[in-house]
């Protein structure tokens, strides 16, 4: 009789059943989608962090950059004879390797202190550098000669400004074309394989570093960068005045992310060519136990008071870009929306159930009159609400899974970069130079300085290459179970309240109320 009565009630009160189930389904679907997207965003953040910090890194140690008067901008200075002149054209080319913008270096003796700290499983130091390549051609009006000047690039987002000043004799500035290329280079320990940037890459060609590579001029190159620059194993690459040999090509272990650096070289080599001997920019630390990370962080902060010690959760908050926006959206709007819709669904279920009990006063009064106990009536009402919640839960799971599948099919690309590391720029443009401008002092007597050429626009273009990750929202069985449980709890809650109302009906009063 219980199931017959339940089935008849639900099938004959389809509208109420549909409203309660729909409300519950929407709430459950939202819970599933928000949780799946949150899981996807978290995985994406982890991917971004791994691509930058490597797999297994629990803590990173770095130093906050102190703003310099020049803002850390790379400067290219060309003296007389700094370019090669041919006819009226002068070719300029220069590259520099310096500490990456946004990072500061500190003494590599810190690594030994870190390794001695209790709770440290392994540690590795890196030096993040940026390679700035500047090249271009200027054209001179009138007399040809050697051009000297200073160009300063307003990196990373601005436009290079400046112009050759003080032309020695000859004509004025007649325009030019310049390109600026910025590449990220990491100096890594050739022996550290448990922690560090190279733990999140896989070798596609060539070989990785060995201890014999210490101090050698060898490079491991990211596959995307290698493709752009047409580099292969065995090729050479000039960095500054040093020629390096490519020994390996790597790609990110994540199919949806790029590696954290364009090129990798031995740490001691990087320190030498960047003129940063004894300096590192980041130490990667793997803790012996993941549960002791916060304790280890405190110990490291005590050991190295002048540096910044960040755990993985600290780093997650440093991830920027659309990934950060998505994370914020999911954790704030998504969670609150889920809670509000869930609460609304519960409220709807409760109100409809209580309303149904009120409408069925005569029915319950009659059942009590023919001997039904309070417990049996409560079970009947709760059973109906339970099934309504269950229907809503199952429908919500289906809608939620479909929603997650749609998200995964669309697979929106999220970009993210870690604020504590360099998001190096690759590429560079060669926009046309400005029209000839300025006055040519030398045009009138062959002496005097050309002054103030204006209009030459250096086409430096620095694009931040944040790691891009395709969002994949996982569907966890536990979330489905929790979602269905929530729907059932909602149904049971409504049923309990409705049943309690029904059990409080005095049979005589219930019958009298309809008399």
């Amino acid at each position, binding site marked *: *009789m219980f199931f017959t009565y339940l089935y008849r009630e639900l099938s004959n009160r389809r509208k109420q059943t549909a409203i309660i189930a729909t409300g519950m389904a929407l709430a459950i679907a939202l819970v599933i989608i928000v949780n799946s997207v949150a899981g996807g965003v978290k995985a994406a953040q982890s991917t971004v962090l791994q691509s930058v910090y490597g797999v297994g890194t629990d803590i990173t140690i770095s130093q906050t950059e102190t703003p310099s008067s020049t803002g850390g901008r790379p400067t290219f200075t060309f003296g007389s004879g700094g370019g090669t002149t041919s006819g009226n054209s002068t070719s300029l080319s220069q590259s520099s390797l310096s500490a990456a913008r946004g990072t500061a270096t500190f003494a590599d003796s810190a690594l030994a202190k870190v390794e001695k700290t209790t709770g440290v499983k392994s540690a590795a130091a890196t030096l993040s550098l940026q390679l700035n390549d500047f090249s271009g051609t200027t054209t001179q009006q009138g007399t040809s000669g050697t051009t000297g000047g200073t160009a300063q690039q307003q990196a990373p987002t601005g436009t290079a400004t400046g112009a050759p000043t003080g032309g020695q004799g000859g004509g004025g500035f007649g325009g030019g074309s310049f390109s600026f290329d910025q590449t990220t280079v990491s100096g890594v320990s050739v022996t550290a394989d448990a922690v560090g940037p190279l733990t999140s890459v896989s070798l596609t060609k060539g070989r990785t570093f060995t201890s014999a590579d210490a101090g050698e001029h060898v490079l491991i190159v990211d596959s995307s960068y290698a493709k752009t620059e047409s580099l292969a194993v065995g090729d050479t690459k000039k960095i500054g005045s040093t020629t390096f040999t490519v020994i390996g090509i790597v790609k990110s272990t994540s199919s949806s992310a790029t590696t954290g650096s364009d090129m990798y070289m031995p740490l001691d080599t990087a320190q030498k060519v960047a003129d940063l001997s004894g300096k590192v920019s980041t130490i990667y630390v793997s803790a012996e136990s993941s549960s002791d990370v916060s304790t280890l962080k405190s110990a490291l902060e005590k050991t190295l008071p002048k540096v910044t010690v960040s755990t993985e959760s600290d780093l997650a908050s440093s991830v920027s870009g659309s990934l950060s926006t998505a994370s914020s959206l999911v954790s704030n709007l998504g969670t609150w929306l889920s809670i509000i819709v869930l609460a609304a669904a519960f409220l709807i279920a409760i109100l409809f159930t209580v309303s149904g009990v009120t409408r069925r006063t005569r*029915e319950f009064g009659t059942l*009590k009159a*023919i*001997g*039904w*106990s309070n417990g049996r009536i409560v079970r009947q009402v709760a059973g109906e609400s339970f099934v309504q919640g269950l229907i809503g839960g199952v429908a919500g799971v289906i809608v939620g899974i479909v929603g997650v599948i749609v998200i995964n099919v669309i697979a929106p690309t999220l970009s993210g970069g870690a604020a504590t590391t360099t998001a190096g720029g690759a590429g560079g443009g060669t926009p046309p130079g400005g029209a000839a401008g300025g006055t040519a002092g030398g045009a009138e007597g062959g002496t005097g300085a050309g002054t103030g050429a204006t209009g030459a626009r250096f086409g430096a273009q620095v694009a931040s290459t944040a790691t891009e990750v395709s969002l994949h929202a996982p569907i966890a069985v536990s979330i489905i179970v929790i979602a269905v449980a929530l729907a059932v709890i909602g149904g049971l809650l409504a049923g309990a309240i409705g049943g309690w109302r029904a059990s409080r009906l005095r*049979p005589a009063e219930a*019958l*009298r109320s309809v008399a």
Partner: protein
Amino acid sequence: MYSLKDVTKTYVQKKRTVTALSKVNLEIPTGQMVAIQGPTGGGKSTLLQMLGALDKPTSGEIVLGTKTVSTLGDSKLADIRATDIGFVFQGFNLIPTLTALENVQTAFARSPLSRDEQKARSMAALESVGLAERADHLPSELSGGQQQRVAISRALVKEPSVLLADEPTGALDEATRDEIMDLLEGVWRDRGLTLVIVTHDSSVARRAERRLHLKGGHVKDA
């Protein structure tokens, strides 16, 4: 048999105390057919609810057979209603979403019988009132008289010792009224149960062995 001693029932309505029954003393022997008449608000339905263990008196004592129902808790009262007492209401009070057969089956609230046995007995009860072919119909698909027959089947299927009917013909036309009364009278005679009918209809009351008049909370034999 029923024995009522100084039964008083008062209600509080809008801060006003209303006395529905006032020191009612009444004996109803087993197997008697009793009709209760009186003006509206005279306490007829209240008396029937006391007899049916639906409510407890404010004071006084009600004994059904050997059970003092006026002192029992809600659970025990539900037990008595489930086994000893059958109800028939003026408005039939069938569950609208259940078929005629299922409505009759609801009477087995605390029956040790198997589901098949309950179903067989319910079907037999419907057959006894001539509604076997309507067993699968919803109440909305039945006439008033047919609905009341289903209600009577529901009241009798558990074989109670007492059948209480509150205006059982109040919503029926004259012809149907006579059919229902013939049915109730036949059951009363065949089963020897105690039948108490509350009615405004003198022609219904005249069929009873005993007629009680209830006015102002006081009862007396008519």
